[in-house]
């Protein structure tokens, strides 16, 4: 087993990985950019190494600097988290060449699956159904337009590399194609350094259901059931839950088997996620392979909540050559878990990302709750990275129990100083269609008016609190450092 691991990431996922390393008695090395010198993940590691400037290309994407940090710190393994270098097969190969274990799949499996086109071919060969689509070898505008016309509108333009919704464009008519191609190509080049595009048929009212898999270097692959990820905005997930309200036991076993055979066909080891589109409902619903994410997913905690496993621990164990720690029969889904992504964005203003300091930040706590955060009170949210601040995961015996826990927790999750989507998430959890489990990937668009009310007038109670805040001098150091003295501060103030 490794005695020292370097975490090549930032934010909530770096924090989450560092925590498991500590529990396993493994020493930790954090890396950070200039913008993150005082970030939460840096303070939680045994050792922290600066790797460059704020721009990702100068730091979290700098392969040589990160490998050098591993060498100087004596880390035997690198956990890449998600995003950044996590699905970069060249980096995984460079790690192997440098004698450092990359905690993830082999460079070969990653290269095959990282390209959506090659992944589709593997799926087809493994007998897993795929959505009609094409990747023209000729990437000229004319060839892409011809491919889209052949697939049939509406189409989805996707970068062949990468993920996370970056560069993805829905196109409903041929006339809009040229500008969408240019924008998708630009975003893909900026984010992944590769502007190769892929054209896919858009399925109407699809549900996005993914399966967690874990494989080892001995050829064993198990699945850890599904995650329902239909609530998305511009292909960025907003809320995930498991089990899916659309998946019956018979469908679950078909999809699970398909996920395992796909991973086996790709020679996959470590944690991965097989994404499917589900069309229809009941035992006979159709499902199509979308892509395989060769990394730990953002939403992995809901799987951990219903299966009672630590996926990061399992990742580290299989990377060290150990077998998958559980048999398929040992894995059970118990209860229901819901994750909401708390983001620094303003839904009232086109979800504009927000940057700035968290003047006040207090996490909720209670039975069945977990908050994976990359920030703390006083943290500076930087313009350089994505807007995810934290993930709130609520578990309950039933979907309703989990939903109520999530709602209550959000009502006790103040984040002030910058706008966040917390109020939107609460309205989402209360929406009658969400309560009924009637979801599709367009939900946030079609229900926007209910989720983002026009009336923004503060309540009388909120105004009363504001008046008290304004009437008080800036908090004294005594008030910040300790509990208030009830004899001096418990005084009703009428306004």
């Amino acid at each position: 087993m490794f005695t020292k691991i370097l975490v090549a990431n930032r934010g909530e996922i770096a924090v989450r990985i560092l925590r498991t390393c500590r529990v396993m008695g493994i020493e930790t090395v954090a890396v950070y950019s200039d913008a993150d010198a005082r970030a939460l993940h840096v303070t939680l590691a045994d050792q922290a190494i600066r790797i460059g400037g704020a721009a990702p290309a100068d730091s979290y994407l700098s392969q040589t600097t990160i490998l050098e940090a591993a060498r100087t710190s004596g880390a035997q393994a690198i956990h890449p988290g998600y995003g950044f270098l996590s699905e970069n097969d060249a980096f995984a190969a460079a790690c192997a060449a440098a004698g450092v274990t990359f905690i993830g799949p082999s460079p070969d499996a990653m290269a095959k699956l990282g390209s959506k086109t090659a992944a589709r071919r593997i799926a087809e060969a493994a007998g897993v159904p795929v959505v009609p689509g094409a990747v023209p070898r000729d990437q000229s505008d004319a060839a892409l337009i011809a491919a889209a016309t052949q697939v049939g509108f509406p189409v989805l333009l996707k970068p062949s590399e990468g993920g996370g919704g970056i560069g993805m464009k829905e196109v409903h008519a041929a006339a809009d194609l040229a500008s969408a191609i240019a924008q998708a190509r630009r975003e893909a080049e900026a984010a992944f350094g590769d502007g190769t595009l892929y054209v896919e048929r858009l399925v109407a009212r699809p549900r996005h259901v993914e399966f967690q898999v874990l494989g080892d270097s001995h050829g064993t692959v198990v699945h850890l059931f599904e995650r329902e990820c239909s609530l998305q905005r511009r292909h960025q997930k907003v809320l995930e839950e498991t089990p899916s309200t659309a998946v019956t036991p018979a469908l679950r076993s078909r999809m699970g088997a398909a996920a395992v055979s796909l991973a086996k066909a790709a020679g996959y080891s470590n944690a991965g996620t097989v994404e499917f589109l589900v069309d229809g409902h009941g035992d006979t619903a159709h499902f199509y392979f979308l892509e395989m994410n060769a990394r730990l997913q953002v939403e992995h905690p809901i799987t951990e909540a219903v299966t009672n496993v630590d996926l990061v621990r399992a990742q580290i164990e299989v990377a060290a050559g150990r077998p998958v720690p559980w048999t398929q029969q040992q894995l059970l889904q118990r209860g229901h878990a819901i994750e909401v992504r708390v983001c620094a964005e303003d839904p009232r203003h086109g979800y504009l990302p927000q940057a700035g300091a968290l003047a006040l930040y207090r996490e909720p706590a209670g039975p069945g709750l977990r908050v994976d955060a990359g920030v703390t009170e006083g943290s500076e949210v930087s313009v350089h990275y994505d807007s995810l601040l934290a993930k709130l995961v609520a578990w309950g015996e039933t979907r309703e129990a989990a939903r109520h826990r999530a709602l209550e927790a959000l009502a006790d999750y103040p984040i002030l100083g910058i706008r966040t989507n917390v109020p939107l998430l609460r309205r989402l959890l209360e929406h009658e269609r969400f309560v009924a489990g009637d979801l599709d990937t367009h939900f946030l668009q079609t229900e926007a008016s209910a989720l983002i009310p026009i009336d923004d007038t503060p309540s009388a109670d909120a105004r009363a609190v504001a008046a008290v805040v304004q009437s008080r001098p800036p908090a004294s150091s005594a008030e910040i450092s300790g509990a208030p003295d009830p004899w001096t501060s418990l005084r009703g103030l009428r306004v």
Partner: protein
Amino acid sequence: MSDPVVTPLGRGRFLVSSEGRQRVAYGVSASGSTWVFLDGEVAVIGPTASKARTTAADEQASLTAPMPATVVAVAVQPGQKVGAGDVLIRLEAMKMELPIRSPRDATVVAIKCREGELVQPGVPLLELSEA
């Protein structure tokens, strides 16, 4: 209807009693406004109206970045005639592209940013002819 009673609890926490019910609220002053969290909703009170009016007046002639962002592309040149909705500048922030569009038909008077530059909110990026 009685007025709400607000009791400071320290560290930005407040007990709010109104209509026979009590809840905990959070409040803090930040970047010139007062921020309150109550019942899962956020209220931002202020900045003052006069400051808001000044900003609105400025926007008639110049376009500003809505948040700190990097200029990816400047799509127009001084002297160029543009139509309402035309993309003038492309910004990128937090991995998202933000197009800055022309609010109306106008002529580009001056460009005040360059590609690759990190721009701050409120700083003019481009000036248009008067409406």
